[in-house]
């Protein structure tokens, strides 16, 4: 299954969850599936979208948070699984799209790509509810379990274009500060409390 198919399936059942996207494939893929300007698209800090989502989940326990992560990101922040396991906030769903490469680097191999069993790593870290899926329908079923902390490893085929070339989705057309203000104003409205102060900062 391609990342595009997973993103399209998630978009079809997206029901107001706060979405945090790792930079690269996840951010560009979610943008292309939704054209949503109220997700948080990381433009740096590779590996730490899951930490960002964890902080948001702790700060907004009344709302569900989806972290759309990648295997490259998870590999950069494996220690974050321990932190996540120590808290396991019931409103956090952590999805790892596992394509065994750096898609944004045109398929450059990932360390130990294809051999590391991330689900077992997560379970060994202490995360109780871990799933492995290979079909978008199974991912949808897992993300709709709304009463517990969940980590899902989704097996993804690297994106390829004509003649087997690795391809990237088009990037989203805004960046840094605009992402911050769009998302922050969105969470303000949804949560009914201020993110920014009375002077706008």
């Amino acid at each position, binding site marked *: 299954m391609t990342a595009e198919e997973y993103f399209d399936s998630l978009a079809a059942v997206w029901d107001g969850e706060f979405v945090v996207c790792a930079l690269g494939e996840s951010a560009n893929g979610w943008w292309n599936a939704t054209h949503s300007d109220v997700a948080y698209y990381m*433009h740096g*800090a590779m590996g730490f979208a899951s930490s960002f989502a964890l902080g948001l989940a702790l*700060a907004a326990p009344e709302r569900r948070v989806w972290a759309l992560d990648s295997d490259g990101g998870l590999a950069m922040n494996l220690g974050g699984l321990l932190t996540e396991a120590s808290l396991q906030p019931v409103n956090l769903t952590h999805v790892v799209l596992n394509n065994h490469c750096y898609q944004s680097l045109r398929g450059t191999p990932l360390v130990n790509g294809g051999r590391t069993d991330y689900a077992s790593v997560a379970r060994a870290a202490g995360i109780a509810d871990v799933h492995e899926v290979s079909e978008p329908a199974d991912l949808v079923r897992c993300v709709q379990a709304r009463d517990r902390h969940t980590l899902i490893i989704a097996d993804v085929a690297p994106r390829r274009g004509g003649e087997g070339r690795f391809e990237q989705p088009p990037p989203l057309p805004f960046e840094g500060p605009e992402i911050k203000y769009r998302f922050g104003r969105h969470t303000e409205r949804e949560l009914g409390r201020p993110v920014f102060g009375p002077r706008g900062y």
Partner: protein
Amino acid sequence: MTNVADALLAALKEAGVTLAASLPDDWVSPLLARLDDDPDVTHVRVAREPEIVGICSGAFFGGVRAAGVLGSTGLLTCISELNGLNVKHGIPLFLVVSLRTGVYELQTFQETQARTVLPLADTLGFPYVIIDRPEKVELIPHAFEASRLHKRPYIAWLTKSLLTGAQSEF
């Protein structure tokens, strides 16, 4: 550091902090114990310091005031994340960091941090305040407000003279 740790916790709470993420060094450990015990603060202990950057930045968007507590060595591990997230996106982040420099810092494993962290903060454009005496702890709530205005990492450095009561800037 008993009294100083209590004062630091009180100052963070006066700033409105209800979430802290941390990784200890020996200087900030007493403050972390206070954070663990305080029922009004959610304290997250992390495995590596850049998680602090992500957690506190995400909490900002939940309308929660968060602070990271770490050592100088830990701060050095966060430079890419601070630049790629907080500077690039303009997200305020308040950090309480041990300032492992000055005449009292004679630990071999802190030597390079001692020469590096202040010029590095200057180079990166991170504003900071140096808390080197107990009476300066009251600056922390003001520094927290300033961090929001500046929309980037803002550091409250804790010195060893703060911990020992020595009459020296550092």
